[in-house]
Every structure is written in C-alpha cells, then in structure tokens.
C-alpha cells in the first residue's frame, strides 16, 4: 500500500516531467505542447493542484467506499453550504465588505463537521439507517444554506455573487495559494493514511471485530470522516460540489474492480484520481467550452467504465470469460463420459447424436461446441452421418473421466449413505473440482474393492441408446 502511494506520487510527477521532453509543433499541437510542458505558470498550478486533489480524494474515497459510506461526501459537501453563507453574512455584518477565503473555508468546515456529527447521532440514537441519516443531513443543511444565501443576497453592502462558485467550482481560475492549500491537504491526508493504515483497514472490513479488539472505533471513524471533510472542503472550490462527490466515489469504485487487496486498491484509487484530474484539466484547457470540473468527472467515469468491463479482479468481461471457460471444461467431461457410457451399454462403433442429446439434455449449440473441442483435441471423430465415435486416445481419456465419476459415486454410496439411484447427480456436480490429490485419496479408500486400473461398474442404470432411458433422471 505504501508502494501504491509512492506510485501515485511518481505518476503525477512523471506526467509533468515526461512532458518536458516533448517538442513543440505548430497550431493545435503547439497548444497541446504548451499545456503539457507546463510553460505557463497557471497551467502548472492547475495541473499540480488538481492532480494532488485527485490523489488525496482517491485514497480517502477508497476507505469510505469500503466502509459503505460512499455517499458521505455527498451529504458532507451539501452540509458545507450553510457554513459558507453564514461566514459571508457574518463578515459582511462585521463590516468586512470583501470575502476572505479562509473565513469562508472555516465556515464550511464547521458546518461540514456539524453535518457529519448529526449524521452520526441520528444513526446512534434513532432507528434510522445510514441512507436516511445522510439524506436528512444533506437536504436540511442544504436547505438552511439556501435560506442563508437568500438572506446574504439581499444584504446591503455585500456582494454575494460568486458564492455559487463553491457549488459549481472554478478549476481554471485556481491560483497559487489554492494549489498550496491543496498540496498541504494532500500531504496531511497521505500522512494520516500511512499512520492509521492498519486501523482504518480493520475499521473498513470489520468494525465489530475492531471494537472487540479494543480499538477506539468511534475515534477512528472520526479520523476517517475528518479526512473526508478535509478533502471535501479543500476540493469544493476547485471542482465544485457534485464533482467533489464524484472524485471521492468514482476512482475508488473503479479501483475495486482491479484488485482484492486493500493496499493496492488505495494506491490504485489515488493514481486513478490523479490521472482523471490531470487528463480532465488538460482536455478542458485545450478544447473550447469544456468546463474543467465536469470534464474531470467524465474522464473518471470513462475510467470507471473500462474498469467495470475489464477489471481483472471483478470486471464483467473477465468474469464472463472465466465462467465460460469453466463451462467448456465441464461440457468436455460430460461429453466424454456420455460417449463412454453409451459405448459401454450399446457397444456400437459409434454413438448417434440423437442419443447424446437425450442423455444429457444438451442444447444443439452446446453439443456442437463440446464436439468441436474434442475433435480439435483428436479425441473424437465422425463415424458416419449423425454418429460420432471416440478415437483410441479419446477412449483412454473418457475412461479416466468415467473412472473418476464412478469412484466418487462409490464413495458417496459407501461413506455418505446416499442411495445408488441418487449419486449420479451429486457426483456430476462435484467431479469437475476433484484435484489429483483427492483422486489419490479416493483410490486409497476404495482400493479394497476397486484395484487401481479397473473401471468400477456403475452403481446405477445407464442410459441406453435408442431413446429408452433406463431409470435415469434426464
């Protein structure tokens, strides 16, 4: 996990550094180069600031996601609005006509923390669930914020215009002091995550166990929430309210698809957050009329979609392929066994496809696919029209499969007290998962009645060709 964070930092720097090596061209590419090589100060500030913000949000978001508090950022960022408005009203009432950034941030932090505390109290002292508690804090605090903004806008001597910037963000106008603030916050978050890594991991996966081991769960929860508050408040004015929520959720959710290990996930989430922010900021700088915050979110969402589809740990495509591969292996074994058993009962020089279909209730496509597999391996061949037979090699393989199946059946009959007429299906389900070691164990157990190379007779009736299934459940 430490490695992950280091990687995150390196990537952010690498994006900046590698750009320096590129050469400037003309026209559009000149623009691209100018942005990427960070020639103007503003671009440097914006890229560094958003990148660090993305990394910090990604790392914190990973923990929040695992703690099932993904939407916490949503409630929290809405809860900062009354603080901003109140701070504005107070500063105007005291006669400071202009807004002081620090004071507004302080206000945002205060009501943000209040919101989180309210959420916690509602969950603790009432029957309301997390989602309701979040929704209540979100809507009531935001409503209060809107009401206060309404007052602020009608105050004499104050210019409330631009307070909405806190809601929609203004990445492009980020200045050095903002970047400094974000860097500081990112540093604090990184240190906190490193220091409390073990505790937060425990808290994310099993809060009950953490409490039983004597960890101060409430205090740790407060630390985690504090980090979310810090990142949110800092990020609000950079990318805006809704987009801040996205930065806390999307990279973390995307990282989850690639790994089952927490450390890797936190690092990956930070990297993805940073990359989405940097890419989004660059795109919005190059293309006209692309609001930066929204672009960042769309880039992050693109990354999420790719992760959802192709993530190695839980992505849709890898899972689909895995299932398919497993299905193919099972179908191959089933076909081999059906062939062997039909040959055993009928003794013909080939098995009719019709009988095969009946024996296993294959669908046409399934049967074709499994046949293709076996012929491809040289285990099966077409005897004549509508009939197939095993090659010599195929017979050997089929006998091995049948033997495993029957040994397992025998085991079930002998040791699990299952009626011979019922063992076929049970054996069918489990035989694909038997390891060679288990096979050896089975052989040892049943050695007395079945000496090693022999194929035990089936304990139940077998399907016969010609359609009369003898007592077998189709």
């Amino acid at each position, binding site marked *: 996990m430490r490695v992950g964070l280091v990687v995150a930092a390196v990537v952010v720097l690498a994006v900046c550094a590698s750009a320096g090596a590129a050469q400037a061209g003309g026209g559009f590419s000149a623009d691209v180069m100018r942005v990427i090589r960070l020639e103007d100060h503003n671009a440097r500030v914006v890229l560094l600031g958003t990148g660090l913000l993305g990394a910090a949000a990604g790392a914190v978001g990973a923990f929040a*996601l695992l703690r*099932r*508090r*993904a*939407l916490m*950022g*949503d409630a929290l960022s809405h809860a900062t609005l009354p603080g901003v408005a109140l701070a504005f009203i107070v500063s105007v009432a005291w006669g400071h006509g202009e807004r002081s950034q620090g004071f507004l941030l302080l206000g945002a932090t205060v009501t943000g923390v209040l919101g989180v505390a309210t959420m916690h109290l*509602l969950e603790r*002292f*009432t*029957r*309301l*669930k997390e*989602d*309701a508690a*979040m*929704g*209540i804090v*979100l*809507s*009531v605090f*935001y*409503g*209060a*914020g*809107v*009401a*206060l*903004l*309404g*007052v602020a806008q*009608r*105050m004499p001597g104050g210019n409330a215009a631009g307070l*909405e910037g806190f809601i*929609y963000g203004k990445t492009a106008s980020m200045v050095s002091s903002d970047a400094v603030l974000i860097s500081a916050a990112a540093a604090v978050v990184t240190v906190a995550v490193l220091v409390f890594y073990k505790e937060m991991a425990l808290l994310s996966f099993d809060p009950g166990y953490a409490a039983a081991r004597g960890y101060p769960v409430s205090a740790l929860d407060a630390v985690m929430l504090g980090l979310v508050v810090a990142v949110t408040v800092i990020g609000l004015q950079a990318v805006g309210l*809704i*987009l801040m*929520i*996205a930065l*806390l*959720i*999307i990279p*973390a*959710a995307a990282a*989850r*698809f690639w790994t089952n290990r927490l450390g890797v996930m936190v690092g990956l989430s930070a990297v993805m957050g940073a990359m989405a922010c940097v890419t989004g900021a660059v795109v919005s700088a190059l293309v006209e*009329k*692309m*609001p930066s*915050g*929204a*672009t*960042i*979110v*769309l880039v992050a*969402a693109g990354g*999420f979609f790719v992760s*959802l589809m192709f993530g190695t740990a*839980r992505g*849709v495509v890898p899972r689909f392929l895995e299932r398919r591969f497993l299905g193919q292996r099972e179908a191959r074994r089933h076909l081999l066994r059906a062939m062997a058993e039909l040959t055993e009962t009928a003794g013909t020089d080939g098995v009719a496809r019709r009988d095969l279909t009946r024996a296993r209730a294959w669908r046409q496509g399934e049967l074709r696919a499994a046949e293709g597999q076996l012929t491809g391996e040289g285990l099966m061949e077409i005897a004549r029209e509508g009939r197939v037979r095993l090659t010599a090699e195929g017979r050997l393989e089929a006998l091995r499969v049948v033997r495993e199946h029957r040994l397992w059946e025998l085991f079930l009959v002998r040791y699990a007290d299952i009626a011979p007429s019922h063992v076929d299906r049970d054996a069918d389900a489990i035989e694909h998962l038997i390891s060679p070691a288990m096979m050896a164990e089975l052989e040892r157990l049943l050695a007395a009645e079945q000496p090693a190379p022999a194929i035990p007779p089936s304990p139940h009736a077998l399907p016969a060709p010609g359609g009369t299934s003898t007592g077998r459940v189709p």
Partner: protein
Amino acid sequence: MNPFTQWVSTDWWIVATAATCAVACALVGCFLLLRKLSMMGDAVSHAVLPGLVVGFLISGSRDPLPMLVGAMVVGLLTAYLTEVVRSSGKVDEGASMGVVFTTLFALGLVLVVRFSDRIDLDPGCVLYGMLEFVPLDTRTVLGVEVPEALLVLGGVLAVNVVVIAVLFKELKLTSFDPALATALGVPARVMHYLLMTLVALTTVASFQAVGSILVVAMLIVPAATAALLTQRLVPMLFTAVGVAVLSAVVGHWGAIAVPRWFGMDSTMTSGMMAVAAGGLLAVAVVFSPTNGVAVRLGRRWLLRLDEAMEDVLATLYRDEEAPNREVRRDPLAAKPMLRWVARMLLHRSGERAGGGLTETGREQARKLLRSHRLWETFLADNANIRVDHVHGSAERLEHITDAPLRSALAKSAAKTDPQGRLIPPEK
C-alpha cells in the same frame, strides 16, 4: 402577534403549492425509506440535467413538455444504470448511485456549456426553482385563478395517490421482503421500477415549479419523521403527509419571520421549508413516544428514582432492625441529589416525618430486604460466590424480584442469610 393574519392570498397559494409538492414527495418517500433508497431523490434530481438540456435542444424552446419528458427519461435511466452497475459490478448501492448521478450531472454541465449559445438555461435556476414566483403564473379554473404549478403538482399527487392505493399490497410486500414477494409471484423488479418512475415523475415535475431542494428534503425528511413516530405502514404514510403539510406552512412562515428577528429581509421559502422539516424531525427524535431520546432518558431516570426510593426504605429498615449497631453505609450517600428527591417523594407514603418508617413503608422495606437476603443465600449456596462478595449482586437483584420469585428462592433457604441475619418473613 399572529403572523398568519398578515398573509395575503399569494402566501396561501405558495403554501398550497409547496404543501401539494411535499405531500406527493412524502408518500413516495416512505417507500424509498423502507427500501433504504433515500438518496435516490437527490441522485435523480441532479442526474436529470442532461435530460433537460436534450429536451430543450430538441424542442428549441423553453416549452416545458419536451424538457419534462427528457428529464423523466434520464431520471429512469439513473435508476436503471444504478441497478446495472450494482448488480453487474457488485458495487454497493450508494457507490453505484454516486457514480451514475455524478457522471450524468457532469454530462449535463458539459452540454449546457457547449450549447450555451443556443440554450438559455441556468443550471442554478433549474435546481433552485422559485417558489416565490409560483403565484405569478396562473390559469383560471372554475372562475378561480390557480397557479399553474399547483395544477401540475396536483396532477402528480393524484397519480402518486392512485398508484399507491391500487398497488398498496404489492408495494408494501416488495418493500419489506422482496424475496418473499418474488416467491409469491409479485414482481419485485417491476415494483422497483414503478416506484422509480413515480420518483422521477415527482422530482421532475416538482423542481421546475418549486426547486429541487424542497423535493429532495420532502422525499426524505417527512418519511423519516413518520418512521420514528410509528411502526406501521399506513399510519406512517398519514403521519408523513401531516409532517409534509406542516413543514410547508411553518417553512413559509419562517422564511418571512425568522430573518426579521435579525433585522434582515425575508429569505427563500423552499430552503426554510427544508429547515422546518428538519426541525420537526428533531422534535420527533427527542419526543417520540416510543423511541424518543427524551422519553428513553426519562424512563431510565424514573427507574433509577424508583430504585433510590427503595434503597432509602431499606436503609431505614436496617436502622430499625439494629439501632445500636454502627452507622450503616447509605447506598445513596454518593448521590445526594437522588437521595433528596427520593426522600421528598417518600414523605408522602413510606417515611414518617420524624424519620421513621410508616406501616406501608415498613411492609415494602421488609419485602425488599427479604429479597436481598434470599438472593445472598442463594448466591452463596448455589453460585459458589464468596460470602463477602454476594452483597453487591443482591443489591441489584433485589429491585427486580417479585413475590413468586421470592417464594421460589425461599424453598431451599435457611432462616438466616450467610451473615447470620434473619431473613424477614413475606407477611
């Protein structure tokens, strides 16, 4: 001063519109709360932005119908995509909702900016809505000038009421136990999307009229308040409706009155209505007759007071029993306040003014001491606890021991307790 006397018809129209919206939301919100989908209202209300923009682009005007349809479609899409991401990616509900709605909102923002020369659409305006302007846009119905927003919201409310009334059994079953519902042949999935359709319809129709803050708040807060006050679904629905109406009235009053206390002008009604709903929730949290914090605390305190009174009686009885022995440790010595209250109450019944026990008090104290010593005997004999350790446990158990339990304990007990003191008779 009664603020309502100053209200003109405009104010009443505003309140009526807001209340209609609030009731429509609260009804749907109860089912969202039961399904732990309270954040759905917030998600949908943000996510519909691209739908509004596309509707606007297609129609090329501010004609509300295409925008409404566009928003409805995207609202449903939000629910659908959330479900897709959740089930295909094994992402938890909140996270998948967050991914979907922030992405759609970002898409909407990009569209707004990219087509800014063709669209006169301020996202802020769409999201806030102006409840105050509702009475300006009227239509004459049966000779009365009714705000158009009220008519639209009245229609939405009617749809919600009819759907919920007709499919009440199905909605209830799928909300509480989707697996059972499916087993019984009620399509839980269809019900889920039906509810989401109602949410999208209500949200979209409302926030053009009254702003999204009111919608999001009313989808959650009245339902949560009602859930704290009752455990049954039908009373919950009615309570939620009541809370919704009350928040609308109190909120509008607050928007006018509260800023005046600080010498400022009035403020946004919709925001204050959300705050009012929050206030009502806070009242329910504290004073709910079944679960309220204050009620639970009060009950605990009464119990402690009851025990304290019994302790005082027992101390007095022990003094009577052995007047010459050294002064007993008063169990309430460390709690003078509790002791004082207990004594004040006891003066009425159990304790004589001079300091002794009345007949009733002695009766009660004897039973208490009987329980105490029976427990000490039992613990020493049967639970293998050392004699000098049984007092503490007996001190706690004596308060919850009744006559049948005492007689059961007495069966195996001797006449005296482990310290050799007489166990007083039951009568």
